[in-house]
């Protein structure tokens, strides 16, 4: 199934944005260079021009999307800011914490250091795509069972990384798990329980 969505879908939080836009419209007009003033007549999309936008065809959690993005938008910001998929977290935004881990074409990567526009034609899976509250992924269930989190901020990244860790064949021992989960920092220090959760899912032997 592929449905075509563009602008609207890029902005699910339109209400809030409209408010901000209205309240800043006067300032915007006062500051706008002459070339942009022309756009301020009726029919103007009341929105800051997005420079150099590029088309982007991407599949996210099984849904094909046709989007339009500025080259500077990271995959993380596309997910969170434009598609309201806020399960993926922004911790450091510099590749140092792993909170933003998602799968691209089956491999775990850091969405904060990935440009959205470079994901053309790729399949992205986020935490929203692995389980639902009524139908948890085995890894999510194991995290709950083993108390693999406290504040939960790092957890979506941990779960995405944990699933990949098993799929890659890097979860054969606790040491192996620790090494291959080292890219996911937990400020609350839930590490021992995270290792237990992953080891249990691995032992369960289900293909993930």
């Amino acid at each position, binding site marked *: 199934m592929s449905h075509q969505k563009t602008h609207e879908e890029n902005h699910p939080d339109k209400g809030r944005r409209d408010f901000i836009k209205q309240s800043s419209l006067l300032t915007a007009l006062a500051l706008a260079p002459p070339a942009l003033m022309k756009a301020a007549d009726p029919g103007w999309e009341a929105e800051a021009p997005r420079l150099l936008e590029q088309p982007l065809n991407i599949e996210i959690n099984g849904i094909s999307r046709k989007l339009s993005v500025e*080259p500077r938008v990271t995959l993380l910001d596309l997910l969170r800011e434009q598609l309201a998929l806020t399960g993926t977290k922004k911790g450091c935004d510099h590749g140092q914490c792993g909170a933003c881990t998602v799968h691209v074409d089956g491999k775990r990567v*850091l969405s904060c*250091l990935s440009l959205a526009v470079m994901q053309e034609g790729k399949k992205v899976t986020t935490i929203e795509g692995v389980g639902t509250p009524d139908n948890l992924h085995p890894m999510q269930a194991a995290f709950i069972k083993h108390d693999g989190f406290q504040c939960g901020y790092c957890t979506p990244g941990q779960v995405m990384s944990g699933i990949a860790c098993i799929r890659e064949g890097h979860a054969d021992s606790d040491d192996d798990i620790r090494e291959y989960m080292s890219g*996911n920092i937990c400020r609350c220090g839930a590490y021992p329980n995270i290792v237990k959760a992953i080891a249990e899912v691995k032992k369960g032997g289900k293909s993930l």
Partner: protein
Amino acid sequence: MINFDYLRVTTPKAAVDAIVTNRNAQWIAGGTNLIDLMKKGVVEPQKLVDITNLPLKEIKKTSNKFSIGAMALNSDVADNELVQKEYPLLSLALKAGASQQLRNMATVGGNMMQRTRCPYFYNIDMPCNKRQPGSGCGALKGFNRMHAIFGASDKCIAVHPSDMCVALVTLDATVVVTGPKGERRIPFQDFHRLPGELPQKDNTLERGELITAVELPDQPFKKNVHYLKIRDRSSYAFALVSVAVAIDMQNGKMNQVRLGMGGVAHKPWRLKEAENFLTGKAPSEPVFREAAKLAMRGAKGYGHNNFKLKLGPNTIVEALIKATATS
């Protein structure tokens, strides 16, 4: 991040042309270093040329050499069966770097081209001759715990942060590049450079030269190899000091020895004198100590990094013990 133009290329020629015709264009591969630097404002290219679709991902063995495409992912190289069998040192060094997520994005070419992690280079409010020639070196008399002990200059004491490159220099790799003037081969040893008067230049590539592959010669180093990386935590941190060892043991003696060091210089460091000293000898701790002493000749601390003067030789000895323990 300041906005920029974006172009996708599918041939090395188009990649080179796109850079040669626009001074402000830059290639992007995995993006794990470049995006980070762009977010910090350290570099501000006006155009990014995406080279991830170039057909340069192959890892292959021909009659007398082994070739790894510049766009091969760090994780794919580390996990490649042929690499593990023929060049286990390279696999070990790659796995010691970054995290699995980053290795799944980072490419071989990008890894070689990554910039220093010196905090003065990363902070645009600080002086740094590498980032802004002539502004001074903040690290020289500043916070220099991570910095060089070999080959530095009063213009720059930064280190090259790569683990993979330490293995490649140790294994006598060759870099294949293509540019406006055609193809050329650079011995890995000569690829990165010392800072001297031009710390802004990390390596000997000319503008518009694209790395297409890394080649490795046939080698006997399959078993007695070790990569020992000392860092502030046991994983996911840059090296304070790292040592790469490759030894060919024959009848209880070290027939051929290769030694490299990371985290100590502006380029991956080869320890030729120590190699020569060890060659032909039987492995023993006193012999290793002697070799480490030779390796450290000319080392110089800058204050916070003085500990490397002791950590360095200790790491060399430990790595040699580990590498020869499996004989």
